[in-house]
C-alpha cells in the first residue's frame, strides 16, 4: 500500500492509483486461476509432447466434467454463504443408483438417482433455510447419510452393479457430438445456463444478495428461504447427475468414488475467485478452477517418476497460493 508513490499535491493521482489497484486486485481475484492455468498449460505443452495431443486434452476434459458438475452446484451454494459437504457422497450414490437402475431401463437410470439425490438436497435445504442450522453440520450429516445408504445398497461395496451391455444408457457419457464427448458438451451447456441463471435471473440476484448480506436480503423482501432451498436442491441434483454420468462412463456403479470430492469442488470454486463468504463470483471462474486441478493431475501423471500422491500436494499448494494472493491484493480494499 505504502509502496505506491503518490504526490499529495495532485488530488486526483492517488484516487486514480487506488482505482487502478482495486481494478487489478479484482482482476486477480477473478482471473488469478486463469493466469496460472494458462502458464501451466503452456509449460506442460512445451515439456511433454503428449500433453497437447488431442487424446490427452479430450481425456482431461472428460475427467474434469464429473467434478465440474459438482463444482457448479457448489458455486451457487458458496455464493449464498453456505457450504455443501454432501456432494461427494451424493455423487457416488447417484452413480450406484444409476447403474442399478440401468438394469431396469434407461429411464429408471436417470429418474431414480435424480429423485433420491434431489430429495436429499431438499431435506438439507429445508433444515438449513427454515431451521437455521449451520450448513456445515447439516451437509456433513448428509455426507454420512448418503455414504451409508450407498454402502447398504452395495453390501458394503461387495456388489458392483453393471450397466447391461448394449444399454442405451452407456451412450450418455460414452457417445460424442461432432467428435466431442457428451459429458464435455453437457458441462458446457450446464455452465452456460448456470452463468445465465446467476447473472440474469432474480433467483441468481437473490443468491448473490443472500451471500452478500443476508439480513438486508430479508429486509428487502427477497425470498431467502426459497432461494436457499433451491440452491441445495440444485447442488444435490447436479452431484447426482454427475454420478449418473460417471455410471454411464464406467458402465458400473463404483462405490469408492466421491470420497473427498466435495473438498475438491470447494477448492475449484475458491480457485475460481468465488468468495468463500459468499456474495461474489462467477461460474466461469469455477470451470477454470476445475480445469486447473485436472491439468495439474494430468501433468503429474506425465512425469513418470512422480507418485500420483503429488497431485494433492501440488493442488493444495496452488490453492493456498491463489487464495493468499487474492487476500493480499484485496486487503484494505473493503472495509
Amino acid at each position, binding site marked *: *500500500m*505504502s509502496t505506491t508513490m*503518490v504526490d*499529495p499535491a495532485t*488530488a486526483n493521482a*492517488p*484516487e486514480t492509483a*487506488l482505482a487502478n489497484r*482495486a481494478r487489478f486486485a479484482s482482476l486477480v481475484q477473478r482471473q488469478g486461476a486463469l493466469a496460472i492455468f494458462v502458464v501451466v498449460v503452456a509449460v506442460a505443452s512445451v515439456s511433454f509432447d503428449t500433453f497437447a495431443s488431442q487424446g490427452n486434452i479430450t481425456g482431461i476434459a472428460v475427467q474434469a466434467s464429473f467434478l465440474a458438475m459438482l463444482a457448479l452446484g457448489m458455486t451457487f451454494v458458496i455464493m449464498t454463504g453456505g457450504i455443501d459437504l454432501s456432494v461427494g457422497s451424493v455423487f457416488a450414490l447417484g452413480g450406484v443408483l444409476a447403474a442399478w437402475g440401468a438394469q431396469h431401463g434407461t429411464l429408471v437410470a436417470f429418474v431414480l438417482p435424480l429423485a433420491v439425490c434431489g430429495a436429499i438436497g431438499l431435506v438439507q435445504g429445508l433444515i438449513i433455510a427454515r431451521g437455521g442450522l449451520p450448513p456445515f453440520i447439516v451437509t456433513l450429516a448428509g455426507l454420512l447419510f448418503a455414504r451409508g445408504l450407498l454402502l447398504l445398497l452395495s453390501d458394503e461395496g461387495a456388489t458392483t452393479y453393471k450397466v447391461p451391455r448394449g444399454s442405451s444408457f452407456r451412450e450418455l457419457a460414452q457417445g460424442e457430438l461432432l467428435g466431442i464427448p457428451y459429458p464435455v458438451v453437457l458441462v458446457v451447456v450446464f455452465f452456460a445456463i448456470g452463468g*445465465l441463471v446467476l*447473472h*440474469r*435471473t*432474480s433467483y*441468481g*440476484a*437473490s443468491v*448473490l*444478495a443472500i*451471500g*452478500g*448480506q443476508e*439480513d*438486508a*436480503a*430479508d*429486509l*428487502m*423482501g*427477497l*425470498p431467502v*428461504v*426459497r432461494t436457499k432451498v433451491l440452491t441445495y436442491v440444485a447442488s444435490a441434483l447436479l452431484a447426482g447427475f454427475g454420478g449418473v454420468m460417471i455410471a454411464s462412463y464406467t458402465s458400473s456403479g463404483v462405490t469408492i468414488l466421491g470420497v473427498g470430492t466435495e473438498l475438491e469442488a470447494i477448492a475449484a470454486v475458491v480457485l475460481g475467485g468465488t*468468495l468463500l463468504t459468499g*456474495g*461474489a463470483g462467477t461460474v466461469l471462474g469455477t470451470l477454470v478452477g476445475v480445469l486447473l486441478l485436472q491439468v495439474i493431475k494430468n501433468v503429474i501423471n506425465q512425469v513418470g517418476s512422480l507418485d500420483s500422491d503429488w497431485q494433492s500436494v501440488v493442488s493444495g499448494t496452488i490453492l493456498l497460493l491463489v487464495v493468499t494472493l487474492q487476500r493480499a491484493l484485496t486487503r484494505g480494499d*473493503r*472495509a
Partner: protein
Amino acid sequence: MTQHSSAAAAAAVGAVGAVGVGDPVLQTVGVTKSFGGVHALKGVDFELRAGEIHTLVGENGAGKSTLIKVLTGVYTPDGGEVRYAGETVHFRRPADAQHVGISTIYQEVNLVPLLSVARNIFLGREPRRFGLIDVRAMNKRARELMAELGIDIDVTAELGRLGLGSQQMVALARAMSVDSRVVIMDEPTSSLETAEVETLFRVARGLRDRGVGLVFVSHRLDELWELCDRVTILRDGEWVHTEPMSEMTRLDLVSKMLGRDVEEVRAEGATEFGSSHRQAGEPALVVSGLEVANRLHGVDLTVRPGEVVGLAGLLGSGRSETVKAVYGALKARSGEITVAGRKVRTGSVRGALASGVALLSEDRKAEGIVPDLSVRDNIALAVLPRMSRAGVVSEARIDALVDTFMKRLRIKASSPDQKVRELSGGNQQKVLIARWLATEPTVFLLDEPTRGIDVGAKAEVQGLIDELADQGLAVVLISSEMDELVEGADRIVVLHDGHVQAELDSTDLSSSELLAALAGDRERDSRPASQAPNQAPTQTEGQHA
C-alpha cells in the same frame, strides 16, 4: 410458501381502496408487543395520514423501533391490529409489507455491499426481457432515478465502495423506485452530510406532495421542525401525545418525551455536559506529525489527563483517520505518538492497547459489538487476558467487573446474560464503552459516541464522558454535532484535509463560531463556492474514497 404470502399480499393490495390525501393510510390500534416479559409496546395507537410527514419521537426504549418493526412486518404484534388503508392487515415478514407498498429506509444501510448500485435498487424487481434480467434497462432506469434525485453516482459501481451517505441515497432510490404509499425512514440522516440531508428532505417533500405518507425518525431535533407535519411522542412503550409540529415548542417536545417538567429541562440545558474540567499535568497523549498516506498530512494533538479534546472537521477531513492511526488500526507513514511520556509503536493495535489507548469506533455494528454474545461476554471480551490465570478465566472476577460497569454506566438489560442484539442502540453503546473502560485506559478515543442513539441515552453518554474526564481520563471526542463539541470539549482541534486547521478554546465558544471555524478554510483559500463550481464534487468524492 413465499409465493402464497405474496399472493395474499397482492390480494390485500387489491382490496385496498383509494386513499385520499389526509385520510389515514397506516394505523395501529392498541398494538402490544413484549420480549421475554419486557413490554416494549403497551397498546399503542398511531395514525399516519396520506400526504403527511409524521415523526415518531421518544427516548431510549420508548418503543419507536419496535413500533416501526411492527409497521414493516419485521415483528408481528402480540395484540391489537395494524390497518393499512382502512383494512386490517397481518404482515408476517418484511416482504408482506413491501408488497402492499410500505418501503423502509433503515438507519444502518441494509443493502448488499458486493452488488452494484443498480442491482441494489432493483433487487427482487429487476426489469426483464425474454424472462431474463435486462441489465441495460436496469442500469438506465437506475441512472434516471439517480438523476431525479440529483445524485451523481456511477450505478454500475459496487455499492460497498461508496460512502455511507451515498449508500443511504441508494436506499432512498430503492424506496422511490417502487410506488410506495408509505415510506418509513428510521434515522436516515445519521450518516448523511448537510447537502445529502437537503436532498433527502427535498425527495421526502416531493413524495408527500404526491400523497405518500411518511414516517420520519431522527435524533436531530432541528430536522423535525424543518421537515415534519405532525409528531407522535412515545414513552415507555406507551402513546403520549400527537400534535401538529408547528404547535409544538422544542422544550415542550423534550419535556413530553422525557416526562420531565419544562422548567427542569430549561435549567439543565440541552446536553448533559457539565462545566470544563481541565487539569494541568503531563500530557497523557502527544501526537506529532502524524501522516497517513492520502489521508493525514502531519497532525499534531496533545491531550492532558482529565481533558476532553474535541476533533472537529467536515467529513473526510481526517477526524476518524486520526484516532484510528493513534489506535494503530491505520498504518502511519510517519509521526510520533507518546502516551503518558512513553513512545508507542505506530501501526500496532496491540501496542496501542498495551500502552493504554482505547478506541470506541464510529461503526459499532461492524467494528465492536458481538450481537449474539451476552452483555457480560461483550464487556469481558477485551479483558479476558487480564482476567485469567494460566489461561483459565476467573468467572467470579468477571462477574464482579461486569456488575460494577452495568451499575456505573446504568446499562438497561434484563440480566448480564441478555444478548446484546436485544438491547437498544444506546445501551449497546454503553456496553462497548464498558468494555473499553474495563481495560483501564489512559487515553479514550471516542468516534461519534452518541450517533444514532436516543436523546435520553445521548444525555447519559455525554454525562458519562464528563464523569470519565473528571476521573482523570484523557478523552478525544469526535462528533458531527456542534453542540456536543462546544459543550463537551475543553478544546477543539479543527481538521481540514488531514491538517490541523485551527485550535479553539471552547470555554466561550458558540456553535456558530465553531461553524465559522469549520467553514473558515474556504475563505482563506480565497475561493468562494460560487466561483469554483467544480470544487464541491471533488470534495465529495474524496470523502467517499
